[in-house]
């Protein structure tokens, strides 16, 4: 196989989580009964007219500024025209040659290196509805709840050179959006969608090869896998002396392959023209400045500050800053607890594990930072064991109670009185002669069993480490006595 270099560009569609749609007052709640969130405007009924949602416009400016884009002094909307049943007006109101913003960038970290990926443009557009196919009927149905929901399309420059860079770009992009609090960024609900453009060229050359657009990518991992697959497919074709066809391909997550959807040559002509129902918008520079002044500290900056201020490893700083909620919990907890590293570990390991296991976004989880502080303090003063703390952590999130309250209510204090522990050890040893024998016969497992018995007898209130030491001591003592 010859050496090829991939050229990767990403088009990301982000649903803005505004309360109402882009051009009418309908709500945007996900999962409502079909067509319950529609009105004459978003259904495109004859005679209706669009009116731009000011909030969506403002959020668009925030996003543009967060990616260091130049917000344009004027923007206009255009009609992108094609026929499809989920498109109520026969055109989508989008932006063609005068988008909201252009020429920005996003810095990503790959390995130890920081790489700057250019952002070509950001434009606003309305979402389409959704087709529902009933496999038992000859008819299909349309749900227009999503029609008119505001979208931002963020188009990168074709400056990524490895699947991992695409993955990092998306991760960082999502982090920035979470800081701005403008989108739920949920790929499964479709509030974040990504298409990847991939082409190959012989390593060391500059002209671009024919590009393939990959659609139907439903996770960041899928983006990475699809690009990897496409690189191999295209390389093999090129090695066979074939030409790459410029086309759109669909990612098949099950088969882990891409399938041809349609070739670009036969693609429709969208007949863009300026939307006459909306006047061009003059974007006031003072307004942009005001929006910029209200931007929060963004991930890259916060990451650098975290590493410096709390003496955290770069890895910790980068994981913690991936989501605004995570870093907020971290910083607030550290402010009360004092030590950074244990808090970082808990947020990175326990909180993230909790979210991942339940497939929930950190934003959907309520965790008072003070709960984490109380847990850590309880471990420090040996009130509870680390193991108990992990269970309590989950319990306090699920029940929305301070773990301290659970400790008190359940009497979960660890037994620190050694004489009490000695007594438990003696009882367990007396009741389990076989295990004692087995241990003496060299079976280390038997000790673990005995520790388990002690824990059971104390309802988990014993410190397992101290329990083990006591048992070990007693087993060797009695051995000496016996011999």
């Amino acid at each position, binding site marked *: 196989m010859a050496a090829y270099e991939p050229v990767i560009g990403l088009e990301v569609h982000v649903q803005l989580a505004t309360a109402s749609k882009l051009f009418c007052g309908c709500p945007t709640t996900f999962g409502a009964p079909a067509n319950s969130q529609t009105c004459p405007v978003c259904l495109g009924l*004859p*005679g209706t*007219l669009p*009116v731009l949602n000011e909030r969506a416009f403002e959020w668009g400016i925030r996003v543009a500024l967060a990616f260091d884009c130049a917000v344009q002094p004027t923007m206009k909307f255009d009609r992108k025209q094609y*026929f499809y049943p989920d498109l109520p007006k026969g055109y989508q109101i989008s932006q063609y040659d005068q988008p909201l913003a252009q020429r920005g960038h996003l810095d990503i970290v790959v390995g130890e290196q920081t790489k700057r990926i250019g952002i070509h443009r950001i434009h606003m557009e309305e979402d389409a509805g959704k087709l529902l196919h009933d496999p038992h009927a000859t008819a299909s149905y349309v749900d227009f709840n999503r029609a008119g929901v505001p979208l931002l399309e963020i188009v990168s420059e074709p400056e990524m050179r490895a699947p991992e860079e695409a993955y990092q770009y998306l991760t960082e992009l999502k982090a920035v959006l979470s800081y701005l609090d403008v989108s739920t960024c949920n790929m499964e609900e479709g509030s974040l969608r990504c298409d990847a453009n991939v082409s190959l060229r012989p390593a060391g050359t500059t002209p671009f090869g024919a590009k393939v657009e990959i659609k139907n990518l439903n996770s960041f991992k899928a983006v990475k896998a699809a690009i990897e697959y496409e690189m191999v497919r295209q390389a093999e074709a090129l090695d066979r002396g074939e030409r790459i066809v410029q086309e759109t391909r669909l990612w098949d997550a099950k088969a882990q392959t891409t399938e041809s959807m349609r070739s670009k040559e036969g693609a429709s*002509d969208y007949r863009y023209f300026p939307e006459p129902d909306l006047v061009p918008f003059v974007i006031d520079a003072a307004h942009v400045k005001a929006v910029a002044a209200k931007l929060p500290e963004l991930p890259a900056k916060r990451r650098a500050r975290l590493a410096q201020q709390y003496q955290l490893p770069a890895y910790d700083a980068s994981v913690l800053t991936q989501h605004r909620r995570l870093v907020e919990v971290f910083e607030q907890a550290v402010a009360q607890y004092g030590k950074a590293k244990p808090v970082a570990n808990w947020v990175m390991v326990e909180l993230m594990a909790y979210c991942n296991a339940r497939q929930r976004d950190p934003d959907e989880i309520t965790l008072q930072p003070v709960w984490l502080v109380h847990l850590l303090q309880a471990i420090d003063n040996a009130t509870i064991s680390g193991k108990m703390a992990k269970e309590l952590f989950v319990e306090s999130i699920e029940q929305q109670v301070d773990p301290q309250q659970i400790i008190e209510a359940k009497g979960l204090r660890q037994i620190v009185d050694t004489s009490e522990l000695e007594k438990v050890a003696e009882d367990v040893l007396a009741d389990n002669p076989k295990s004692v024998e087995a241990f003496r016969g060299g079976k280390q497992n038997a000790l673990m069993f005995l520790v388990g018995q002690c824990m059971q007898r104390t309802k988990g209130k014993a410190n397992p480490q101290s329990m083990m030491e006591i048992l070990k001591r007693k087993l060797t003592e009695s051995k000496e006595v016996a011999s």
Partner: protein
Amino acid sequence: MTQTNRTDSPLSQPLHQLRDRIASGAVDPRQFLNDLLTRIEQFNPSLRAYIAVDRERVQAELAERLAKGPRGRLFGVPITVKDNICVRGEQTTCASRILQGFRPPYDATVIERLAREGAVIIPHANMDEFAFGSSTENSAVGVTRNPWDPSRVPGGSSGGSAASVAADLAVAALGSDTGGSIRQPAALCGVVGMKPTYGRVSRYGLIAFASSLDQIGPITKDVTDCAELLSVLAGNDPRDSTSAPTAVPDYLAALNKPVTGMRFGLPKEYFIEGIDPEIQRAVEEAARVLESKGMKRVSVSLPHTQYAVATYYVVATAEASSNLARYDGVKYGYRGAGSSLLEMYEHTRAEGFGRESVRRIILGTYVLSHGYYDAYYLQGLKVRTLIKRDFDDAFKECDVILTPTSPSAAFKIGEKLNDPLQMYLSDIFTISANLAGIPAMSMPCGFTSSGLPIGMQLLGPSFEEARLLQVGRAYEQATEWHTRKPSLQAAEARN
């Protein structure tokens, strides 16, 4: 041709008189409406000015107004509405098969404004399908006839609105004007019609033909009525982003201001070969009348006039092709058969649209196509700017511009139907006002030797409707053309 002067029949009286008589108790609005509906039932089968009128519904609306009000400036007055203006619950079809059965779940803003003043809405007047035409022959429900001569067209596309006002089947009506669709039928039917400044009247609820050109406006029996109705229609609407926030002046106050010292411009490009000499003479005579009222005549030039029709047919069809894309059989209106989505689309649109609609959709699709956009649509927008600039320059020399409304009086039914280019030239004098966005009003200024009405057009700078009403009212006071009425008995007999 039979003409009669206006009688004192209550059905002939202008809106402002009727309104005053209802308010004073001299006219019983129930009796009036009943007489009007009876007249519609008598003459509409031959004139076809209305698509259909539901007597019970209209009477019920009046009963509700009488019981609950509001007792506004149009209290108890019936207003006729063109079939492209949405009325809640009433079939609104743009005289097209493709919208058959469509009942909007909302009122157009203009309907709300009329209702707020106590008016009773009579839906719907006939029109060219989707307002595509200048003769009302392109209606899926049949041709409207000119009340002055039923063998002739009423003009279009608001032919039903104009014919109903002329024939006293309406007190006043709403039309829409994209390239002359209010003014040309007003001229051909001998009534007053105004296209306001783009953005003066909300387009919310007006089923779009060409969004950057469309305006709703009044068609009335005289200039005072035009001012009355415009006062109700005009104003900013937050539901229409192209609606202007400009304050609405007192149009009625403008009616009685003297015109002494004001200048009217005659653009040399509008007195061209091909114009009916009788029409040219009538407009020249009108110029003398205005001079007799103390106005000064100046000569102005609108050098880009010759490009107006071509520019219009690029811009208007492009927007129309897009606005009509939503009629796909999926959500409402007519649906054709088909075993696949594509087949359903094809049958729906081929069977649902009339010939002229298909012609304009294809033309508009072509001018927006990849590779042609710059040469046609973009070029069209540039010429549009030049035409607008022509008017800006001309209005430095004069206060209003005076032109004929149409190059010919009402033509025979069928005469131009198979010659689209000839038909398109009917709008040669009206199209520029839409491209420039400026207000323009047509009003009666004479009759041909065969007794057909002739209209003259007054144009003014943006948001200067009051000036047109002021000059128009001065002219009307000096003439009696607007008082003449067609004889419908004769029309019916001929039919």
